[in-house]
């Protein structure tokens, strides 16, 4: 449970952001200079709002009206800053251990070992921060925040300077943190893929104001609300249920009213509910059911709407038994196929285009 | 010859006495006497290093001899100008009473306290004090109980502030400090004579002789005596 309603002036820049959500992972999204880091600093207690309120998990951290301002060291909010901010006089291991010492926790070698292994920093433990590469620094900073046993995690572009391989390792860990722990997370990210994969809620900042906020499915489903450059990353998010797993092909089948989807890997026991994102750029429209095509996923539906998107593209919204799947195709194709509202069509999705699923954020649904 | 400048290097302890005299001389002759006060040692070495001094007034004979040996002062111009006394002092509120006589119980009078003096090795006032106490046969009993200051003024301050119950300073200093009282004077024969010699430097301008003569004159005598100095009879040479 995170809610805030804040106003702050920084030179010419005015931050005026209000949000309330109970998501486990809230993504902060917005172009460079839109106020994401400023908001993070306010949440962490590193700057004071001109006026406003912050509540985390029912605890009021800031209320200018009532004169409440909990200082940062009593907030137990772990921060990963945009610049790593490692302590230059401490070795990596002491950086990692810093927070524990002051949060009054006992040393937990297992927790340390887990974090160290996850972040792949085992060989760096005795080095000083100045002997680390950019990505190594950022990984240590992530570890340091995790090790402090925070009650809320603020991550300001923690993965920006990491390679895909490392990201691919860390993302599942953040997912686990989100799903297992009771630590709510606020994540600043420029990557829609990351947000779609990780976040339950989403706040889009624009010039210091909240442009949109809500669940990720809602926000990402509204391609029209997104800036042009992001649209190709937008798409639909479907709630689905695992029906079977075929170990021969290492492939799971998921089902919803909209149809069946194939997903690589073991998605868990039958009956498990998952959220699947289907990017609009990964969806094709077929007028007849395709045969002899390597794409395994074909969802049947009716065209609910065709939205122009730039000169060359249109977005075709397909209503598949109540769920909406979005396809971004060329206008040329749309005309060639004579698509129109009400047409019965098939939405074709390549399996590998799906992001890994994760449990729906809303605990009641589980 | 009006409008000329005479630069006088004088021991710092003479400031009070010399300043008004220098003003008088300047006023009456139209020349200017510029006074530079510092420790005798510093002044002597500066003169040796070519300082533009015309007159040197030392607080003791040693530094005058030092310059005379190096031909930095005009032979024949060296004159014993002033004399002084050393006295035993106590804080003004002290009840101590002592008679200065051979075998006096100075150590007993000090009790736990210390005897404030100027440095007995290097500062003239300290040397004279040590000589006097030695002559009186009490030096050995108080040698370990002295507090030796950089200069006689600092020793005076120690007594004035009650840090030391007794001190040895110049009579001139004691007279000017209301917070101390003179317990007794040391006999003049208990220590070498306290003498402030004066001389023209080797590079002295002619007008400097005028100033030197003025210092030995009647007006100056009154000024010096008002400050507690003894004016010695001018005698050629030493």
């Amino acid at each position, binding site marked *: 449970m995170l809610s805030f309603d804040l106003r702050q002036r920084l030179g010419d820049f005015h931050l005026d952001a209000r949000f309330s959500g109970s998501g486990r992972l809230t993504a902060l999204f917005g172009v460079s200079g839109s106020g994401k880091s400023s908001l993070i600093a306010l949440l962490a207690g590193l700057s004071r709002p001109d006026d406003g309120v912050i509540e985390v998990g029912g605890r009021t951290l800031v209320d200018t009206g009532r004169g409440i301002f909990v200082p940062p060291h009593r907030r137990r909010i772990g921060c990963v800053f945009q610049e790593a*901010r490692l302590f230059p006089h401490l070795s990596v291991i002491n950086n990692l251990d810093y927070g524990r010492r002051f949060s009054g926790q006992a040393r937990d070698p297992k927790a340390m070992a887990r974090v160290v292994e996850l972040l792949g920093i085992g060989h760096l433990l005795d080095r000083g921060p100045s002997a680390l590469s950019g990505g190594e620094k950022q990984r240590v900073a992530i570890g340091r925040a995790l090790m402090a046993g925070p009650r809320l995690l603020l991550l300001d572009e923690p993965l920006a300077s990491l390679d895909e391989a490392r990201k691919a390792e860390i993302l599942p860990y953040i997912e686990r943190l989100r799903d297992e722990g009771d630590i709510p997370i606020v994540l600043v990210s420029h990557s829609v893929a990351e947000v779609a994969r990780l976040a339950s809620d989403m706040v889009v900042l624009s010039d210091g104001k909240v442009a949109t906020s809500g669940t990720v499915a809602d926000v990402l489903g509204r391609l029209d609300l997104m800036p042009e450059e992001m649209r190709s990353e937008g798409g639909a998010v479907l709630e689905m249920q695992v029906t079977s797993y075929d170990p021969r092909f290492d492939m799971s089948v998921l089902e919803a009213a909209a149809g069946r989807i194939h997903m690589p890997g073991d998605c868990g026991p039958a009956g498990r509910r998952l959220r699947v994102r289907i990017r609009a750029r990964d969806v094709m429209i077929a007028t007849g059911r395709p045969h002899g095509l390597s794409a395994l996923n074909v969802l049947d539906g009716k065209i609910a709407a065709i939205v122009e998107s730039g000169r060359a593209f249109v977005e075709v919204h397909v209503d598949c038994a109540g769920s909406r799947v979005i396809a971004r195709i060329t206008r040329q194709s749309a005309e060639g196929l004579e698509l129109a509202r009400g047409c019965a069509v098939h939405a074709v999705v390549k399996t590998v285009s799906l992001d890994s699923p994760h449990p729906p954020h809303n605990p009641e649904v589980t | 010859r009006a409008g000329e400048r005479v630069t006088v290097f004088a021991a710092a302890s003479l400031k009070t006495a010399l300043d008004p005299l220098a003003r008088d001389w300047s006023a009456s002759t139209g020349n200017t006497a510029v006074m530079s006060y510092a420790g005798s040692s510093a002044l002597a070495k500066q003169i040796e290093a070519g300082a533009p001094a015309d007159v040197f007034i030392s607080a003791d004979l040693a530094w005058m001899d030092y310059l005379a040996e190096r031909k930095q002062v005009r032979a024949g111009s060296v004159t014993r100008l002033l004399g002084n006394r050393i006295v035993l002092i106590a804080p003004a509120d002290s009840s101590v009473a002592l008679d200065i006589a051979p075998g006096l119980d100075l150590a007993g009078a000090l009790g736990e306290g210390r005897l404030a003096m100027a440095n007995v090795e290097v500062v003239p006032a300290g040397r004279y004090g040590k000589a006097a106490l030695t002559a009186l046969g009490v030096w050995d009993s108080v040698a370990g109980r002295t507090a030796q200051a950089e200069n006689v003024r600092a020793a005076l301050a120690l007594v004035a502030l009650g840090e030391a119950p007794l001190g040895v300073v110049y009579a001139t200093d004691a007279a000017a400090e209301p917070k101390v009282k003179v317990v007794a004077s040391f006999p003049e024969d208990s220590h070498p004579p306290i003498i402030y010699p004066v001389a023209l430097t080797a590079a002295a301008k002619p007008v400097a002789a005028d100033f030197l003569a003025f210092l030995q004159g009647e007006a100056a005598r009154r000024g010096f005596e008002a400050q507690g100095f003894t004016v010695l009879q001018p005698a050629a040479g030493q």
Partner: protein
Amino acid sequence: METGWLTLSPEEWTAVALSLKVASVGTLASLPFGVAIAWLLARREFWGKSLVNGLVHLPLILPPVVTGYLLLLSFGRRGPIGAVLEETFGLVFSFRWTGAALAAAVMGFPLMVRAIRLSMEAVDTRLEAAASTLGARPLIVFLTVTLPLSLPGVLAGMILGFAKAMGEFGATITFVSNIPGETQTLPSAIYSFIQVPGGETGALRLTLVAIAIAFAALIASEVLARRLSSRIEGR
């Protein structure tokens, strides 16, 4: 030149030992105060900050003799502070080596504070902020981040204070006089030599000793500083 003139008399050895003691104790004892004041000046805004800053610089501005005299007035046996200290802690300064250490500390204080303060001001406040988000309260932040990162300044401050203490005598001699074995430090002894004709050799000898000690301290501090900075390197 025979080597004999370099040999120190037992009394001079005493002065050397005393100088070392006075300078070390003065420097070390004033260090916590120096660090605290430096922090106040570097990181806090408060009413009267200029005054505190001015007071800290006072021993630099005043002729040492005046400082010594003021010390005598306040820390002397009958001085307001001195009397209290003697009564409550049995701490006596007048005519003791402790007084010389106090004088050394006071005279070196502005140098020490300024060096520490400069280093503290250069510490990135964002690191302090990071520490606080990790649960460290302000004192802990200070002890674990600000202070360690200001060590170059602390070291510089100590060496300045120590060097100053090795050279200081104007305030010392005025405050606690020049008692061999108790308050006669190396510089007092050097001064004494200079005051008499022909004392140059003796002054030179002691001066060389003072220089040797101070150089040794300096070199040690440089080595330490290099170690430190190679650890914090890359700032």
